[in-house]
């Protein structure tokens, strides 16, 4: 019985990994395969966007899906990552064209703001967390608009962000080069986030979501770990924001708008909170829909709203667990077969 089960699980894991392999391969081959077509650039650009938003969504999943913190201020990191790039590479006057310092700065800024938000939220309940994070990101957006320190360029934002190389070695100027760069960053981030989640730290996060009192009794200071969750989440979300500002070569106060906080929520709820990959899929699906719908409907926000409603009422675990079940459902007969043949 035990052996059957572990064999079954083993083949389940193997078949899922097989699936990821296929997807990764597809992503790698995509720009090359479509290079000759007229929409090559559009495709590369859009899938690139999907990957960046996917990273953004995964960072939010760590906070919301795994640690159970319903923040509505994730736009903070999106915008701060973007502005880190913009301020360092354009406004500072230091003529930096390599992406590396900007990306590192963005991650550091993300950690910093993550610490700040986490600190404010560490001792309060879920209603307060929602409001505080919302207020925080709104305040930052107002500051970006009013630009008291004269660094954000107010409502015009920062444009003309250069995109030349990474670490002086990798060229990332063209759409296709940047695409592969983003893909590499995404894969690396997935590996790191996955490692964190499977580590004891990840268990603490899930513990805080499920039963904070118990976690406290086990000796873990819940407040401290909430802040850690915010910091890690912030680092990766900022990274995503930085990647997008390099992608668009611009940053504006709109990046701090609560729309992006709402996006983070949507991607995660749609894809499946607490699955890491689910939100990645959620982001991809939403972008596809946006692309298809926003040309047809000016009021595509209706569909966003309807998605929120339908999902939260009838599919609160998101689409990814659904896919998982369907997929392993198909695989099951094969696994049983192999066990039987072994017995024979």
């Amino acid at each position, binding site marked *: 019985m035990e052996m059957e089960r572990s064999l079954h699980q083993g083949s389940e894991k193997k078949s899922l990994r097989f699936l990821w392999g296929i997807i990764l391969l597809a992503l790698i081959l995509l720009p090359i395969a479509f290079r000759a077509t007229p929409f090559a650039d559009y495709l590369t650009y859009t899938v690139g966007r999907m990957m960046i938003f996917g990273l953004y969504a995964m960072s939010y999943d760590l906070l919301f899906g795994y640690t159970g913190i319903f923040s509505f201020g994730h736009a903070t990191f999106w915008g701060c990552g973007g502005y880190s790039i913009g301020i360092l590479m354009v406004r500072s006057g230091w003529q930096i064209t390599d992406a590396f310092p900007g990306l590192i700065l963005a991650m550091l800024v993300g950690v910093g703001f993550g610490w700040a938000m986490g600190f404010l939220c560490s001792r*309060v309940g879920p209603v307060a967390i929602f409001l505080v994070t919302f207020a925080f990101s709104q305040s930052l957006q107002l500051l970006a608009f009013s630009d008291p320190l004269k660094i954000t360029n107010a409502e015009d934002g920062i444009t003309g962000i250069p995109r030349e190389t990474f670490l002086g070695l990798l060229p990332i100027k063209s759409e296709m080069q940047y695409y592969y760069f983003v893909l590499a960053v995404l894969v690396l981030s997935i590996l790191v986030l996955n490692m964190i989640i499977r580590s004891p730290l990840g268990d603490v996060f899930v513990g805080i979501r499920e039963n904070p009192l118990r976690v406290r009794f086990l000796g873990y200071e819940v407040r401290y770990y909430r802040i850690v969750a915010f910091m890690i989440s912030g680092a990766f979300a900022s990274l995503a924001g930085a990647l997008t500002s390099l992608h668009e070569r611009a940053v504006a106060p709109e990046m701090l708008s609560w729309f992006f906080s709402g996006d983070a929520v949507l991607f995660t*709820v749609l894809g499946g909170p607490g699955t890491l990959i689910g939100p990645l899929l959620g982001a991809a699906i939403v972008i596809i829909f946006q692309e298809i719908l926003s040309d047809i409907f000016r009021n595509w926000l209706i569909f966003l*709203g309807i998605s929120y409603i339908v999902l939260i009422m009838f599919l609160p675990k998101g689409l990814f667990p659904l896919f998982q079940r369907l997929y392993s459902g198909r695989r099951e007969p094969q696994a049983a077969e192999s066990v039987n043949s072994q017995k024979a």
Partner: protein
Amino acid sequence: MTFSAFLIQFLNGLTIASIYILLASGLTIVFGLQGIVNCAHGFFYMLGAYLSFMMVQQLGLSFWLALPVAFAGNFLLGVGLEFLGIRRLMQWGREFTHNLILTLGFAFVGQEVVKIIWGAIAQLAQPPAALEGLLNLGPVAYPKYWLFVMGFTVLVMFGLYLFFLRTGMGILVRSIALNSEVSQAMGTNAPRINTLIFGLGTGVAGIAGVLAGPILSVDPNMAFELLMIVFVVIIFGGMGSLVGVLVSGVIIGEVIAFGTALMSGMIAKILAFAVMIVVLIFRPLGLFGRGAVVE
């Protein structure tokens, strides 16, 4: 600042406070009763404004008719949202964040539908003929309509006070807020009362919208524009407390009025947010919060 300038700003603060207070009342009552935050509250405010605009400006009906119609329309819609959505989520034992997402989605849909029906350009509603023009208050002259809004708000708050503290239904509502389980064990149909009070909250939001139309303009961003400040008012005043809303509304209204006049609108808003964050962390109950819908 001259005295008359000061007086004008002070009255401005009271005017804007009136809108905040009306909006915050509905939101705080529902939170005190059911523990849910209705992110679509701003949408109901918007709907009230647009319904009134349509009735008065486009159909030529009386402003005084628009008030009850906006209330009734919002009440019904609010009851629908509560009964079909929020109540189900509570029955299924979902966490409170699900209600946030549900009401948020509802707000998006509602906002866009309003835009489709009435267009996405801001309009200015007209006050009723009887209230046009200025009233001479001695050192200053102030718009009659704006003074009316203040007075009407006081009237509404007084009405709510009478309702909650002097009627049988008010007693039942308060008992649910204090201890829903025990109240139900005494025969109180809490689910139905929750639904009705939710409708009351959204109805009052609609009235706020009707009143705000001629002052703040009827525009497609209404649904979320004021929501953040209203949250600040509620938190500062103490969630679930109507007295808190009154006091906090006036304070925040004056902060915004004077802040906007002396510094800038944005700085005033940031100040307000900072107040809220500080309160949430250090005195989460706010000024008057005790966890009950009282006074």
